């Protein structure tokens, strides 16, 4: 992607920048904002989509995989066949790094090639699939679909704040255009920090306890090398998450496969990062030096570095979702989580954006954008998988705040598995006995029972 091409797009969008009168302003052309804009346009509303980056996606990076969800197909027919994704993920690896060894669980969906449109070799069961993709490409393409459906996209335009009168949001303040854009409805999809949501009093400002920092390095290989190193064929993809690789800082490591690149990085809870005193790039450096990571990176060329904050507080720290004239969706609504097994965000963003857009379009058609009317958005979201999953996994999300999960347990697993496989001419012991020995020095029985109780409540029943 050349710089010249980027610049021409900026110029084109700046020329088209005469915002007239709109029913809605959507702030942020990420997956939530573009989904909301599409749903509004399809509901008959005129939509201005604002993006502070010089193109949609210029400011965006993420872990590397979006879980399949049907929402965007309802907005753009044949969405997953056309969207510029990299690989259809059919293989998921969870690795626990402990001491001088690592232990992995590998899930692999059976390959079938009866879905040629999505790529030979990928599973035909989409619900088992996620897609790796590059946000600057994906977001830009998705925003173009919105433009094709009548949405006015204005890039390089930062929303400065809200226009409020009589206790209702009535537009946004911007720079570079006419200073204000009035509209009866604003949908804030302005990301994790959501200054707009804060200004509207929907949340009291983000806190370190509810956010994580992701840092990511992109490495180039060849398509064949990626396939060989991860045992993939065609457009199949793999993800690998690592626990116990962050020097005691709560967080984890990841590798995601794109077509001919690997995204490698660490995610770190902010409060723990602050307390730990080790810079994120040092933790990244240690991570890429781990032998299971260094193995797949041999000979790879470093091509880009990025960082971003992500919400990880779950429903406990979610902001209010609406007020008179305003809805929030995506990261701005805190809709992103990990329960240790899955990491979800983009699917929640696109689905919440879709729901916000539909509720918004109906409210506009009814001529009622009051707080009580717009509270239907929260109701719809609670009926959808978005808030139901956050509720289902609330204890697991809380469990991710446990320091022992990231330091003690990976060491215990490592010590245990080393004993299981050790062969030195001495009699072997059964697992429970080995386990007792590995655990004895690391934590108390009381701690173990308490953690087991929490884990059972979080994951099993």
């Amino acid at each position: 992607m050349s710089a010249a091409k980027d610049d021409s797009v900026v110029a084109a969008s700046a020329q088209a920048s005469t915002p007239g009168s709109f029913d809605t302003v959507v702030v942020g052309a990420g997956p939530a904002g573009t989904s909301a804009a599409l749903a509004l346009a399809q509901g008959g509303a005129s939509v201005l989509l604002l993006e502070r980056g010089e193109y949609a996606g210029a400011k965006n990076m993420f872990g590397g995989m979006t879980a399949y969800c049907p929402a965007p197909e309802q907005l753009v027919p044949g969405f997953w066949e056309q969207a510029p994704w990299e690989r259809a993920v059919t293989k998921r690896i969870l690795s626990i790094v402990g001491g001088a060894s690592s232990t992995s669980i590998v899930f692999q969906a059976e390959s079938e090639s009866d879905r040629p449109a999505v790529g030979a070799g990928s599973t035909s069961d989409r619900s088992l699939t996620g897609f790796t993709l590059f946000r600057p490409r994906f977001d830009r393409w998705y925003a173009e679909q919105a433009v094709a459906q009548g949405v006015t996209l204005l890039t390089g335009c930062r929303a400065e704040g809200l226009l409020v009168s009589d206790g209702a949001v009535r537009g946004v303040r911007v720079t570079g255009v006419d200073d204000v854009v009035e509209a009866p409805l604003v949908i804030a999809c302005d990301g994790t920090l959501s200054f707009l949501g804060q200004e509207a009093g929907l949340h009291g400002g983000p806190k370190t306890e509810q956010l994580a920092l992701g840092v990511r390095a992109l490495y180039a290989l060849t398509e064949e090398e990626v396939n060989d190193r991860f045992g993939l064929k065609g457009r199949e993809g793999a993800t690998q998450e690592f626990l116990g690789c962050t020097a005691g800082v709560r967080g984890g490591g990841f590798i995601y496969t794109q077509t001919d690149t690997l995204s490698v990085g660490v995610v770190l809870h902010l409060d723990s990062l602050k307390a730990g005193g080790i810079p994120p790039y040092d933790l990244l450096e240690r991570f890429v030096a781990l032998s299971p990571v260094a193995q797949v990176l041999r000979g790879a060329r470093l091509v880009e570095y990025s960082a971003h904050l992500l919400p990880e507080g779950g429903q406990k720290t979610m902001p209010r979702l609406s007020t008179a004239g305003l809805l929030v969706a995506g990261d701005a609504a805190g809709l992103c989580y990990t329960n240790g097994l899955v990491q979800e965000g983009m699917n929640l963003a696109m689905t919440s954006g879709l729901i916000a857009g539909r509720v918004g379009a109906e409210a506009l058609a009814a001529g009622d954008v009051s707080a009580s009317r717009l509270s239907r958005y929260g109701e719809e979201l609670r009926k959808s998988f978005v808030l139901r999953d956050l509720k289902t996994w609330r204890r697991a999300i809380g469990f991710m705040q446990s320091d022992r999960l990231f330091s003690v347990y990976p060491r215990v697993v490592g010590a245990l598995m080393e004993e299981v496989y050790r062969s030195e001419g001495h009699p072997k012991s059964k697992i429970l006995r080995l386990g007792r020995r590995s655990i004895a020095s690391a934590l108390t029985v009381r701690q173990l029972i308490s953690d087991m109780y929490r884990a059972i409540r979080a994951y099993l029943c």
Partner: protein
Amino acid sequence: MLTDELFDLVSYRIHPDPHIRVNAEVCVGCTHRACTFSCPARCYTWSEERERVDFAYETCLECGTCLLICDREALDWHYPVGGHGVRFRLT
């Protein structure tokens, strides 16, 4: 060092005005100086000579970590003017 290479690979369109301003007077009493090791872009560095935190906005990745990490409200924090700042090409 991987770290030094990382920072060279990021693309920016830098605005002449800083989008974040650090109030050095508020900074002075800080004991943890967590911004100096938490910022993923190494924008904050402790200067022994000047006995203060030096800040360079040009290489900022706009993540917001510093805003959250600072518990003395020493930062006047904004996103860069539209169309400026970091531009991710791929990741």
